[in-house]
């Protein structure tokens, strides 16, 4: 034990008190941690109420009101989806987490990834909708909460990616008409606030559809979202395309590769690998922007929290409610960040 103690002391001296400046910083930071962390732990853990009846009971104890989360848990996650059928969105969540894990661990080879996600999203839509296999039909207006957020994010980001590639390539095309169209589209989509874009698309999209064909608001929002993100992502990809040295194009040309092969096999793989940090930045921003669709009356996971907080018994539990929702957002955003870091390492191996 004394060996362990000696080693701990030595580590402390070597790492925390090796210079006067470091020693001072260690003391200051330790003080700040104690000063601010301890009341936080006190609030979140020691004085927290798990079984209180309402927010006033919590206030009496003076700690966090986790009882609100416990009471409203299913609603916070699934919203107004029919209570007895909530096993279906629960399975949907399992499918999403499984897909994320499969992608994250690289269990699936890259070329199976897209089909797996497509199949997964199909299964998700089927489960949510029902009307087959004895599952009662549930209209999209009742697809709420976390499943809705994930459907919007996965579908929107997934669809925006190929579109962004086309826009980026189009903007660098040697055909002037194509270049102008792509540039105009990108600038228009980026120059309009997402909310305005959303309203615009809700109204405009039906005009492009054959009469009689009605698309649920959810899917119109999904399309609007994908089109919006694609503009941002296209610029990220274009940045990567511009970073590829001319020699790479020339080497591909000299080998007789045509435009498609050159782009797919030589240029894009490098441009995409180069821009992973910026792509993830866009994806994470977009994931959180899904919350804006509550404005057109869709109930995403954040809107569920807002709704639950209307319960007179829990009016004051908003800190707990938003913390809970925040943790959910964080978990997904951070997992995207982790995934990209792994991908960068994987793609960077032996390169430089």
């Amino acid at each position, binding site marked *: 034990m004394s060996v362990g103690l000696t080693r701990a002391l030595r580590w402390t001296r070597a790492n925390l008190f090796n210079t006067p400046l470091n020693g001072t910083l260690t003391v200051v930071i330790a003080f700040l941690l104690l000063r601010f962390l301890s009341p936080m732990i006190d609030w979140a853990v020691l004085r927290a109420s798990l079984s209180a009846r309402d927010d006033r009971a919590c206030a009496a104890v003076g700690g966090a009101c986790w009882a609100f989360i416990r009471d409203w848990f299913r609603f916070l996650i699934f919203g107004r989806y029919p209570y007895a059928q909530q096993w279906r969105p629960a399975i949907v969540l399992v499918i999403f987490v499984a897909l994320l894990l499969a992608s994250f661990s690289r269990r699936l080879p890259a070329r199976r990834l897209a089909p797996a996600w497509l199949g997964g999203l199909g299964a998700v839509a089927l489960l949510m909708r029902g009307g087959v296999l004895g599952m009662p039909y549930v209209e999209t207006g009742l697809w709420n909460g976390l499943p809705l957020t994930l459907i919007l994010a996965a579908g929107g980001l997934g669809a925006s990616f190929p579109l962004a590639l086309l826009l980026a390539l189009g903007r660098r095309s040697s055909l002037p008409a194509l270049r102008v169209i792509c540039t105009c589209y990108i600038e228009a989509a980026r120059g309009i606030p997402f909310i305005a874009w959303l309203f615009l698309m809700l109204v405009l999209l039906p005009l492009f559809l054959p009469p009689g064909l009605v698309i649920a608001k959810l899917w119109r929002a999904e399309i609007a979202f994908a089109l919006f993100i694609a503009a941002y992502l296209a610029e990220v990809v274009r940045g990567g395309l511009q970073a590829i040295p001319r020699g790479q194009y020339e080497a591909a*040309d000299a080998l007789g590769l045509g435009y498609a092969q050159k782009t797919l096999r030589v240029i894009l793989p490098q441009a995409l690998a180069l821009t992973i940090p910026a792509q993830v930045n866009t994806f994470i921003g977009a994931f959180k922007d899904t919350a804006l669709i509550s404005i057109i009356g869709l109930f995403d996971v954040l809107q569920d929290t807002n709704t639950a907080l209307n319960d007179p018994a829990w009016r004051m539990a908003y800190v707990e409610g938003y913390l809970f929702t925040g943790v959910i957002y964080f978990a997904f955003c951070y997992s995207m960040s982790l995934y990209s870091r792994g991908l960068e390492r994987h793609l960077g191996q032996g390169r430089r």
Partner: protein
Amino acid sequence: MGSGVQDRPMIELRHVYKWFGAQAVLSDVSLAVARGGRVVVCGPSGAGKSTMIRCINRLEDHQQGEIFVDGMELTADVKQIEAIRREVGMVFQQFNLFPHLTVLENLTLAPIRVRRMSRREAEDLAMLHLERVRIPEQAGKYPAQLSGGQQQRVAIARALCMKPQVMLFDEPTSALDPEMIKEVLDVMLELAQSGMTMICVTHEMGFAREMADMLVFMDRGEVIETAPPDLFFTAPRNERTRLFLGQILRR
């Protein structure tokens, strides 16, 4: 076959001009290279040497005159350009290997995608050429893990995997450390002995004397002198050639 295909030059440039703005970078360049011919192009920097060979596979376009490769004329027709590029291999000063692919993948990409070879066939061919350039053990590595000399030999093997009729070399040793130049030149000499049609822009005059059957001296976009190596080095006719050789051989 006394005439016809065998007599036709592998590469022919007829009165080729190219301008960057008002400045002529190629000016009335004519050149014929027979099948199996080995040409070294030399001259001061800015002479248009690189531009000329880059016109042969249309990495640059010429604005006047005609260029024929194996009887096919280079025009703006993309299909024709791609057909010519399949027959013309090129090695660059900066190697230009694909950094995201392994050495083997660098070599098999074009044979599989352009020549429609099976993966198996392409890999066998790639290993054959890697042995030819003496680095088969590097097949699984990425370009950045190799030395400059090794990368340039991979680049040569990559071009050879397309089974080209002609090989173009654009200053292939200029970006290399001195100790690596020989390993690349040795590979090129072997290639020359195998009967490949080659055009090489280089400042390595010892190599030129050994490999070439024709030397071309260019200056300011013009072909100044064309001669077999023994005449070129011992009895250059043009004053500018003499000046250049005096400068470069004294080093």
